[in-house]
């Protein structure tokens, strides 16, 4: 079995950076969830069945405020909308059918997406699936540790939930790095100002609608075509 060793090594080296992020961030998630009044096993269940870091952070204050299921589902739609565009670049790389295909679709987080897209095109789907499962394992492990810690300790610090804003700032920075135009930022700032002026409680939904409108009106600069 001389061929088994190298993939195993590279799997570990691929999943390690994700582990370094998911375990601590999972701990913070589990901790905040339990401190907000949730049962520890519900924090773990959300990491197993939802597996969407930013949306899970976002749901904590919304659950604490007893917002409706529909409201939280809509917010999840907004926060996770970017995932629609991830799959497009992985279409031919996933297994054609079977449970592994659907598990990999389910587990397609920002980090797993960025690791999978760096793999060589001939990577076996089993390796890709193992990688996705390892990544989710780190997130579930972190959430469990955090949830158990949160049920033991009381932390008097304010503002820990700012971790969600920081997470959004990181995702925005990465989107900025790969931008093809700066217009979305200007459209977002203008939309939000207008929406906030109209109705502060509905500013997010309104400004997203305005941004979608701007995106549809936007004429993408055409690449030069030789005549």
């Amino acid at each position, binding site marked *: 079995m001389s061929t088994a060793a190298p993939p195993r090594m590279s799997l570990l080296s691929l999943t390690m950076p994700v582990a370094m992020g998911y375990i*601590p961030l999972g701990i913070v998630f589990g901790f905040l969830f339990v401190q907000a009044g*949730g049962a520890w096993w*519900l924090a773990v269940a*959300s990491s197993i*069945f*939802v*597996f*969407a870091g930013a949306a899970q952070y976002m749901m904590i204050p919304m*659950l604490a405020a007893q917002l409706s299921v529909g409201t*939280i*589902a809509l917010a*999840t*739609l*907004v926060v*996770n*909308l*970017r*995932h*629609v*565009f991830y*799959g497009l670049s992985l*279409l031919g790389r*996933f297994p054609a059918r079977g449970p592994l295909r*659907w598990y990999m*679709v*389910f587990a*397609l987080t920002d980090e797993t997406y960025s690791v999978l897209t760096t793999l060589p095109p001939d990577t076996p789907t089993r390796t890709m699936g193992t990688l996705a499962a390892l990544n989710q394992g780190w997130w579930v492990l972190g959430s469990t540790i955090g949830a158990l810690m949160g049920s033991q300790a009381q932390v008097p*610090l*304010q*503002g*820990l*939930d*700012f*971790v969600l*804003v*920081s*997470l*959004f*700032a*990181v*995702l*925005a*920075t990465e*989107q*900025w*790095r790969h931008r093809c*135009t700066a*217009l*979305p*930022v200007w*459209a*977002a700032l203008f*939309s*939000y100002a207008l929406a906030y002026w109209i109705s502060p409680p509905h*500013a997010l939904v309104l*400004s*997203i609608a305005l*941004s*979608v409108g701007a*995106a549809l009106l936007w004429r993408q600069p055409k690449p030069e075509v030789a005549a």
Partner: protein
Amino acid sequence: MNTNQVLAVLAAMMGVTFALRALPFVAAQWLQKHPFVQRLGNFLPLGIMTLLVLHSGIGAAADHPRGPWPELAAVATTAAIQWRLRHPLLSILCGTGLYVAWRNGLLF
């Protein structure tokens, strides 16, 4: 938190998240045939992330009387570290750490 309410929310979030991730795999031809999908894909992720930073940052600033300065400083710190070092955990920890220290009067 009410357990049944949380379970209902988790089921809804699971459905929405999975549907979004699965959409390109079940509707690839439709998505690739329509140029507006490509336009949305190039435009929306950056726009929506900007809106989420704005909205959640303004929400945090409304919670306390120190104004928007801790939020602005923490977001700028997070973005600057991420831009330079591409290390999400480090960026998030530094930004959140600065924010928590500021909010709890450990800085001033």
